[in-house]
């Protein structure tokens, strides 16, 4: 019994740190969800946009920029990366997944070029987490407050946006591109804008992560995509995706729950090296579940994805 109580106390001790981390990473889950669910565009750019945001943020911080400005610069870089993926898909008719892989691979070199080396320490520079009053800087609570408020603001803004005329048009492009075009909606504008926005959120996540951990590393993106997908699946299983409000809440709820689960597994003694296998199997199971449920009936329609 003692081991169980040790596991639990280890886990509980890590809850605040994990929560801070998951709130920061919820932005990349949002960056994965947006194109996937609203534009029907599975976008792999996030795995490259995340370290891109981190690298750009670290460079800005090293250059003396304040924390918030570094994040804005990172967002702009992420938007550019996302819109490049969308452009490659639209202009050259390259499959969405392949366009994302191309962009992600190229971004690795770009990130190395930008930083000039594989990692850059920005420890000690002022960050966005310093500005919270009455809290000791560096303590996870300030990260929870800042990342949480930022997440809440983004959630509310997106919620409003997807109810506007333009937001409705963007969702129509994901739902039925031919119909959207026939209603006068530009597929190009909606796709480039939407995937770009997602890239901006992924980059925000990377920038926040760099400010939180005090350094940027070109390899910080490895595995973020599959983690993000797992978090999204959990979030959608918990809050659903029937309405805009639920669909937008799923990345945040999913990220918070997923990283606590990971923390619990690690506290229970799972070797960290097995984490990706476990996450991959989990995502596979979540995606396979609908087909298993109806195995006796007719095969359900395959997930329609833009090609």
């Amino acid at each position, binding site marked *: 019994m003692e081991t169980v109580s040790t596991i639990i106390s280890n886990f509980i001790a890590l809850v605040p740190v994990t929560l801070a981390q998951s709130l920061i990473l919820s932005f990349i889950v949002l960056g994965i969800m947006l194109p996937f669910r609203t534009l029907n565009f599975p976008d792999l750019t996030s795995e490259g946009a995340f370290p891109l945001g981190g690298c750009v943020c670290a460079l800005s911080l090293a250059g003396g920029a304040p924390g918030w400005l570094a994040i804005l610069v990172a967002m702009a870089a992420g938007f550019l990366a996302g819109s490049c993926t969308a452009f490659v898909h639209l202009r050259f008719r390259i499959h969405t997944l392949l366009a994302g892989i191309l962009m992600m691979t190229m971004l690795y070199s770009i990130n190395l070029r930008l930083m000039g080396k594989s990692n850059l320490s920005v420890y000690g520079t002022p960050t966005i987490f310093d500005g919270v009053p009455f809290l000791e800087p560096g303590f996870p609570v300030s990260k929870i407050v800042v990342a949480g408020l930022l997440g809440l603001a983004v959630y509310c803004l997106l919620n409003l946006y997807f109810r*506007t005329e333009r937001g*409705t048009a963007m*969702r*129509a492009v994901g739902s039925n591109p031919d*119909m959207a075009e*026939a209603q*006068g*909606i530009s597929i190009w504008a909606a796709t480039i804008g939407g995937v770009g926005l997602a890239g901006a959120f992924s980059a925000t996540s990377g920038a926040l992560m760099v400010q939180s951990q005090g350094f940027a590393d070109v390899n910080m993106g490895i595995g973020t995509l599959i983690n993000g997908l797992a978090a999204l699946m959990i979030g959608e299983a918990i809050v659903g995706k029937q309405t805009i409000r639920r669909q937008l809440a799923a990345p945040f709820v999913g990220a918070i729950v997923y990283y606590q689960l990971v923390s619990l597994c690690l506290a229970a003694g799972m070797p960290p090296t097995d984490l990706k296998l476990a996450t991959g199997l989990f995502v596979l199971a979540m995606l396979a579940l609908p087909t298993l449920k109806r195995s006796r009936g007719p095969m359900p329609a395959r997930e329609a994805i833009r090609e």
Partner: protein
Amino acid sequence: MLEIRSARKVFYKGQPDEKIALNDLSLTLPSGNFAIVIGSNGAGKSSMLNAISGALMLDSGKILINGNDVTALPVHKRASRVARVFQDPMKGTAASMTVAENMLLAELRGKKLGLSRGLNAKRVASYRDRLAALNLGLENRLDTRVELLSGGQRQSLSLIMATCDQPDLLLLDEHTAALDPRTADIVMQATVRAVEAFNLTTLMVTHNMQHAVDFGHSVVMLDAGAIRLEITGAEKAEVTIPKLIGHFGMKTDRMLLAS
């Protein structure tokens, strides 16, 4: 008014399987005219409609809508003038969005989109009124996702969406072909009501010879990518199914079955 001037489109040009889809096709449809387009499979009906809507770019020739040259405009830039209802009920609506959201998309067709709230109370109320006219109960299902509606309901919705803000040109692409006879009848009646109420310039493709006889001001028959026959005015009023089928020449069997 729609004018097509010697429209030409060749697929697989210069290859062994070259296919002339539109062979210098010319057609003038005066404003307020409701024309029925008939012709056997492969005659170029769909190519003509695609060329008008912008889904198919012409090799040569011109397309003018109300005097404006739209030949070079992509689909989304013609949307303010042209509305279209497809044969497949899935094509004309956004399945994962609600009935009201689909109506909103139709209302905004070709307009400049803003950042104001899309579905406001005033709009929702007007959609309810418009849908009530169909007598399909859609007015009570404004928040239902369209994928949960039946094919007939979806097609009726597509029709209401296409006609709601009185397009310069309405294209109906065998829009009742996929429906059961009763629903097809409801959709056809709604079509005629809308076309007459707004005096819409309309092109309706159909394989149903009875529809060709019963509806419209003129009948246009396509063959091998060109207009083979145009029946208008008094002659149209007296046309019968056997007369129409007679014009199909050799290819009558399918048409007889279809009628």
